């Protein structure tokens, strides 16, 4: 037996509510942001030579160790490309 028009309408409404729920939208946006973020970082990093990549890693590790030792967790270094984590 074919579903009634009311049932179809109700199903569509439920699907719409789920799709546009804040949680669903946030999950979709976060996934898109992560992929975009990764792609941007990789694009930047691939422009460096292996020696420059190693120097960048050394620099990051030194920064993190120094920061941890000084217990100053407010010193957040901006992501490469000028993206400030605090603004996200």
């Amino acid at each position, binding site marked *: 037996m074919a579903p009634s028009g009311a049932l179809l309408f109700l199903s569509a409404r439920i699907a719409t509510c789920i799709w546009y729920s804040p949680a669903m939208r946030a999950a979709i946006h976060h996934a898109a942001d992560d992929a975009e973020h990764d792609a941007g970082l*990789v694009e930047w990093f691939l422009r460096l030579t292996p020696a420059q990549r190693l120097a960048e890693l*050394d620099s990051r590790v030194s920064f993190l160790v120094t920061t941890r030792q000084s217990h100053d967790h407010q010193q957040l270094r901006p992501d490469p490309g000028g993206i400030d984590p605090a603004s996200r």
Partner: protein
Amino acid sequence: MTTSSFGRILEVLTRHRVDFVVVGGVAAVLHGAPVTTFDLDTLIRVEDRNADRLLDALHELDARFRGHSPTLRPTKRDVLAGGHLLLLSDAGPLDILGFIGMNSRYEDLRQEVVRLTIEDREVEVLGLDELIRQKKALGRAKDEAAVRLLEEVARRLRPSR
């Protein structure tokens, strides 16, 4: 305080002509994945003369076991045992590995190694595809982000794939 310098460790190991392959997070960085790691993982050839050269390099780096026995230096017997030596050198943490993954040794991975030039020195690094395979096989949550970045690197280097 120990200042981390992966470049210095690689320079010392290559100058002492140690047979080794960079694996793990530093290999990912050298391939172009912007991950952060605190130690340098090296897969070494477990062999008598290579052990001598490695020990000379480790002596120059003042490498000692990290953790519960920080005053102990690795011996030739330790190296030839073919296991994992987790060390702390004057240039940062250094892991000397006799095997990786499912008992893959230096000799087993010769076809999966690439040579990269760093400061006029050639360094052997585990190839991108094998690195992704090894990290996936470990199945650790902490490797998921690195695998994602490595796959993005692979996609960009081989856009037609």
